[in-house]
């Protein structure tokens, strides 16, 4: 690195002649002390020099002779391991042989799907084992070049050496090289050779995207081999949740492309994925031996029937099947939670399923499936459903045509719950007390009542009194405050008595107490027990960490005797769920069990056929509130919804608040139209996919899945402003299997396009929905198959591309004998202007120079002030001496203050007498005596005495002054002789 200054206006430098002139002027100043004078002069020269430099446009030119080289190593899977190692070895050799200049730096970047800096540029670079991990499924050389250009150190000449096979799958390395070259970076290339081995791969597998049920279709497979060989070809089918092997054949492959054809027929509707796998011994890369494709079958709708209480409702399933509806019956555990699996059904029926049995994923997927996938939902009641089943404030409540919260009723059926918390005897018990209190509170609705009791510092006390829940915030706050203070309860009798008294006096329909304890406290007295039983207050008990079976007995007896439930808990994590379950029992007040005749409120298509004959009686239902835009087809004797339905998003849902068992619908089961009614309901709610005139194309391009819709109507005209929506699911299922949205934008008349990221290989389900010109909602299921990465397609290096890259980078194709560290790059010096720095420097120094010349600092005065301050602190007194006043700074023109005593003669006027004259002191004494006499004698004579004294004093002073000036020399001699 070498620097030199340059000037834009060199002739301005003539002004430097002013400098010696200013020195000469400055030297003539006599009013300053030496130090100050020469400091000021120096500064003045510096300032002048800076100003002149600034005027001349000073610049600093740098030329650096140092080189930084980045080796970009391609570690994608298209390069075999041996060749990759050989490339690494080549880098090592380059560095050993050619990195001789100690200022040169070299670094390594490893590239695959991403680029990563393995070694930042350093002197004497030694490449050990590669530690960076990059995904080898793709090659993104462009990113590597961008990274290198950004990561070069400043002030170096720059070169990139690219070691690759040239088979890139992402980005354009040629474009990036051109950009790098424009930024001054040279790009050299070392080609890595690949291929030359025997290789077989699946080139293509294709199936028709849309297939009709029971219609045969072909699966076409193309396999490519470099040499003749033998192998095994397997075809798998994955659909409706299961994967099976369709065919496994031994095949003879010839060099080149080989096609195979398979005939298939599907009956059930759904999304099917086909996978083909090829196994041969003449193969180097196994990753490209598989392929995927998909077919969507549109057939008869399939309905999933989830039965919450299988023993009691055997009626509906067979009824629907008899009407020809394709039903799959499962219990609650068979309900899938992911959208990918729910896709396989066109409607879901939930009969007497409680929300406490469903996970949050279930609740969310069921809502989304109606809204986004158009799948129908029918919820049938029972004593554990709707509001009484804990569906309040769940996502699925949004999809239903009724609300769980009961409004607009004068006599609100409410429940009352009291929790007795004796939680301090197990670990973190009081923290759990807060959790279970909150869990219970969550299930209750605003008009229910809740109270909580515990043994606090004052004894048995209410944590909060039994009262209406309201907006829950107050109770939550009280819980949080008091839960920590829960203490050891000597006996449950006290709190139980308080709970009983409160509950007996409240007007709730359902009353329950729940106790959590270790069972050690004394139990309830028999009188209290009988009171509870008589008042129909059931007590559920939760036993945790008991000391002995006897403790459990206390709690289980209590539950048994009052009709509550007993829980023995070992893992406290189950506590909140237990409490919310118990709390939801309180919601049983939401049910009405009375015989009534359902009345038709709106003659919708579900009930219009029965207008004349009406419906048979029902014996009970769960109370719900209708939603505003829902159609309430049947109502009860109290006006509550019995049958309600509406559209939600793309799909539809039906709510039937009684059940389909002998409990509440004993007259319905034998009704002649029972089957017909339900089959009609199911058919109404089921997802429909009428034939569509849209041509839908899906493909993979540049790492993204692309969807393109060509929308034409029957006459072949473009359909514009369609606003289609699409959702896709990632292969693999699970939580990833939930649908994600694709944004579709109209890009041309009748053409809509969208893109989404695809990473995993497999078949992606894509559902496209739109409203056709007739106003029907159409859903077109389709998909996208992503096979193996293009990385595995290549059998040879891309030499032409590499040559182009080297040319664009003003570099060459390197061999082992070439020196990547050669300093043969053209370099331009870099210039940076510095005139502004000089100007600022001059401006800063200017006031300092003035200060030095003009300001006199009284250093000793400052020291005295500081010392005085410090001496105020007693301890420092011994360290800091009393400052003495010293000679102030004087200039040539005289003193600022009288000279101090030691350096000059003491002028003692008192007794120095001129010859023959009285001394000063004598005069004073005499005159004083006189004046006092005069003052005593004549007080009115004012000014006289003074004028006498003053004139006398003045005369004496004049004389002695003269005397002293003359006598100074002699007195000096006297003094010096005295001192000896």
């Amino acid at each position, binding site marked *: 690195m070498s620097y030199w200054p340059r000037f834009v206006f060199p002739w301005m430098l003539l002004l430097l002649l002013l400098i010696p002139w200013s020195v000469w002027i400055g030297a003539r100043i006599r009013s300053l002390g030496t130090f100050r004078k020469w400091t000021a002069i120096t500064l003045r020269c510096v300032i002048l020099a800076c100003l002149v430099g600034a005027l001349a446009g000073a610049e600093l030119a740098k030329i650096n002779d140092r080189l930084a080289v980045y080796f970009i190593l391609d570690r994608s899977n298209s390069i075999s391991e041996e060749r990759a190692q050989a490339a690494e070895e080549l880098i090592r050799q380059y560095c050993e042989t050619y990195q001789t200049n100690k200022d040169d730096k070299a670094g390594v970047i490893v590239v695959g799907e991403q680029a990563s800096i393995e070694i930042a540029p350093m002197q004497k670079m030694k490449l050990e084992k590669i530690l960076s991990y990059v995904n080898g499924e793709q090659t993104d050389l462009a990113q590597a070049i961008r990274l290198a250009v950004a990561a070069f150190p400043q002030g170096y000449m720059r070169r990139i050496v690219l070691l690759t096979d040239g088979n890139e799958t992402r980005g354009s390395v040629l474009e990036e090289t051109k950009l790098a070259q424009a930024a001054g970076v040279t790009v050299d290339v070392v080609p890595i050779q690949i291929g030359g081995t025997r290789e077989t791969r699946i080139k293509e597998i294709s199936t028709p995207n849309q297939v009709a049920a029971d219609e045969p279709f072909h699966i076409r497979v193309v396999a490519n081999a470099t040499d003749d060989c033998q192998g095994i070809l397997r075809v798998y089918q994955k659909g409706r949740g299961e994967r099976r092997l369709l065919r496994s054949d031994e095949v003879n492959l010839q060099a080149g492309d080989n096609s195979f054809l398979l005939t298939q027929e599907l009956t059930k509707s759904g999304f099917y994925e086909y996978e083909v796998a090829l196994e041969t011994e003449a193969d180097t890369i196994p990753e490209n031996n598989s392929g995927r494709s998909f077919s969507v079958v549109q057939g008869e709708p399939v309905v999933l029937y989830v039965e919450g209480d299988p023993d009691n409702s055997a009626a509906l399933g067979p009824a629907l099947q008899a009407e020809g509806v394709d039903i799959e019956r499962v219990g609650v555990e068979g309900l899938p939670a992911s959208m990918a699996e729910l896709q396989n059904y066109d409607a879901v029926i939930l009969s007497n399923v409680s929300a406490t049995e469903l996970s949050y994923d279930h609740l969310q997927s069921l809502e989304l499936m109606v809204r986004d996938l158009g799948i129908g939902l029918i919820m049938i009641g029972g004593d554990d459903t709707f509001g009484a089943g804990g569906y309040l404030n769940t996502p699925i409540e949004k999809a239903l045509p009724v609300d769980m919260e009961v409004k607009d009723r004068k006599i609100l059926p409410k429940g009352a719950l009291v929790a007795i918390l004796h939680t301090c005897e197990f670990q973190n018990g009081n923290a759990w007390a807060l959790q279970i209190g909150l869990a219970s509170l969550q299930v209750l609705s605003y008009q229910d009542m809740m109270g909580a009791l515990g043994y606090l510092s004052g004894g048995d006390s209410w944590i909060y009194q039994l009262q209406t829940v309201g907006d829950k915030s107050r109770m939550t706050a009280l819980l949080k405050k008091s839960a920590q203070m829960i203490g050891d309860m*000597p*006996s449950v*009798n006290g709190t139980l008595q308080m709970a009983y008294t409160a509950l007996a006096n409240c007007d709730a329909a359902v009353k329950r107490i729940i106790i959590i304890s270790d069972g050690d*406290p004394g*139990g309830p007295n028999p*009188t209290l027990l009988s009171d509870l039983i008589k008042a129909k207050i059931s007590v559920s008990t939760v036993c945790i960490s008991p000391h*002995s079976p006897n403790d459990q007995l206390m709690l289980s007896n209590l539950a048994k005797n009052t009709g509550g439930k007993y829980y023995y808990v070992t893992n406290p994590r189950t506590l909140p769920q237990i409490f919310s379950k118990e709390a939801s029992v309180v919601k049983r007040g939401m049910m009405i069990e009375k015989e009534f005749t359902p009345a038709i409120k709106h003659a919708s298509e579900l009930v219009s056929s029965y207008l004349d004959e009406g419906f048979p009686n029902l014996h009970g239902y769960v109370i719900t509130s209708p939603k505003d835009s829902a159609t309430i087809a049947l109502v009860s004797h109290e006006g509550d919804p019995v049958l309600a339905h509406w559209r939600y998003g793309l799909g539809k849902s039906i709510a039937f608040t009684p059940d389909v068992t002998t409990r509440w619908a004993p007259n319905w089961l034998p009704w002649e139209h029972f089957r017909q009614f339900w089959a009609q309901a199911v058919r109404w709610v089921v997802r429909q996919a009428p034939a569509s005139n849209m041509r839908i194309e899906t493909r993979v391009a540049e790492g993204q899945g692309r969807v393109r819709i060509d929308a034409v109507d029957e006459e072949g005209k473009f359909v514009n402003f369609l606003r289609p929506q699409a959702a896709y699911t990632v292969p693999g299922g699970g939580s990833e299997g939930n649908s994600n949205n694709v944004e579709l934008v109209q890009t041309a008349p009748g053409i809509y396009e969208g893109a989404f990221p695809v990473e995993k290989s497999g078949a992606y389900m894509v559902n496209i929905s739109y409203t056709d010109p007739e106003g029907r909602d159409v859903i077109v299921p389709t998909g996208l198959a992503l096979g193996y990465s293009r990385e595995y397609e290549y059998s040879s290096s891309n030499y032409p591309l590499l040559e182009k890259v080297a040319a664009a980078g003003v570099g060459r194709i390197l061999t082992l004998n070439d020196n990547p560290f050669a300093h043969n790059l053209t370099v331009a010096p870099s210039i940076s202007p510095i005139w502004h720095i000089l100007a600022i420097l001059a401006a800063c120094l200017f006031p300092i120079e003035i200060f030095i010349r003009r300001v006199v600092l009284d250093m000793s005065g400052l020291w005295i002030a500081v010392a005085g301050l410090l001496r105020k602190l007693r301890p420092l007194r011994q360290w800091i001496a009393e400052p003495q006043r010293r000679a102030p700074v004087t200039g040539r023109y005289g003193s600022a203050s009288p000279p101090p005593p030691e350096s000059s003669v003491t002028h003692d006027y008192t007794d120095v007498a001129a010859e023959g004259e009285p001394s000063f002191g004598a005069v004073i004494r005499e005159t004083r005596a006189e004046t006092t006499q005069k003052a005593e004698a004549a007080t009115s004579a004012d000014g006289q005495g003074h004028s006498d004294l003053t004139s006398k004093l003045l005369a004496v002073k004049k004389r002695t002054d003269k005397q002293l000036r003359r006598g100074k020399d002699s007195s000096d001699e006297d003094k010096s002789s005295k001192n000896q």
Partner: protein
Amino acid sequence: MEDDLRRMNRRYFFFGSMALSALGAGAVGCGSASDASTGWFAWGERGTGGGGTFRAPRAIAAFNEEVYVADRSGRVQVFDYDGVHQRTWMIPRYDKGTPTDIGFDAQGRVILPDTHYSRVLAYTTEGDPVDQWGEYGTGVNQFIYPTGVAWDSQGLQYYSEYGVDAERIHVFDARNQFVRQWGELGNGPGQLNRAMAILIDADDTVFVVDTGNSRIQRFDTQGRWLGFIGDQGPDRLRYPYDAALGPDGTLFVCDYGGHTIRQYSKTGEHLRDYGQPGRGPGRFNCPRGVTVSADGWLFVADTENNRIHRRMLDA
């Protein structure tokens, strides 16, 4: 002059604050403290280390000029009347629970009803284990949770006990054989709800601390109900856990919920209270044990404050 005044003030302030903080530190940090005005002396602090540290002391008894304390850490510690630690021994198991009472039988052995292990432990006063008997069960000769022990003039052992189907007073002879039992769950006369302690006075009146019903019950040795104590009035008991007989025959009841010791006459008249809620000497937080020595010293096991308090009874 002003300077001098300022200097003096500064000096007073400095020393004054030092003194105050010393006092404060002393008051807070020290284990023992006494309150001369009220006559209470207290020792002990939370811990499971050396003598004088407690973890929820719950059983206390005075014998032979010594005080025995059992706490939740499974230790039985012995102190003299001034709180000077004498010795300690451990009971065999204590993770499920620890004894809630200490008694001394006619042979001078220390008897501990080991409540949650459903058995009785016997030691010498030096802490050497002598005997261990009792098994889990609701039948006769079996225990669920024995809580307190007392002896009548005939030498029979009376145990207070609680549990489902075991709310009773259980009587055994000197050879640990069943003699009789009485009691059942309830809140009527003679019914118990978690009896936590039992005393028998010189006239063979049996006093049972009926914790769950917040009262003391009086029986004769055959189990005939004689009366209630402390269940009426504004100063009624709130979960008493222990009781002791004074030298003058009055009853001292340890009121867990009321944080005080209530003194009653034998007939149930409330005489006075000793101690109040709080933290200093003579102030209790959920006390679970009380005892009175033969020479009139009152000792209280202050459970949540982890201390033992002592006071001479007023005449």
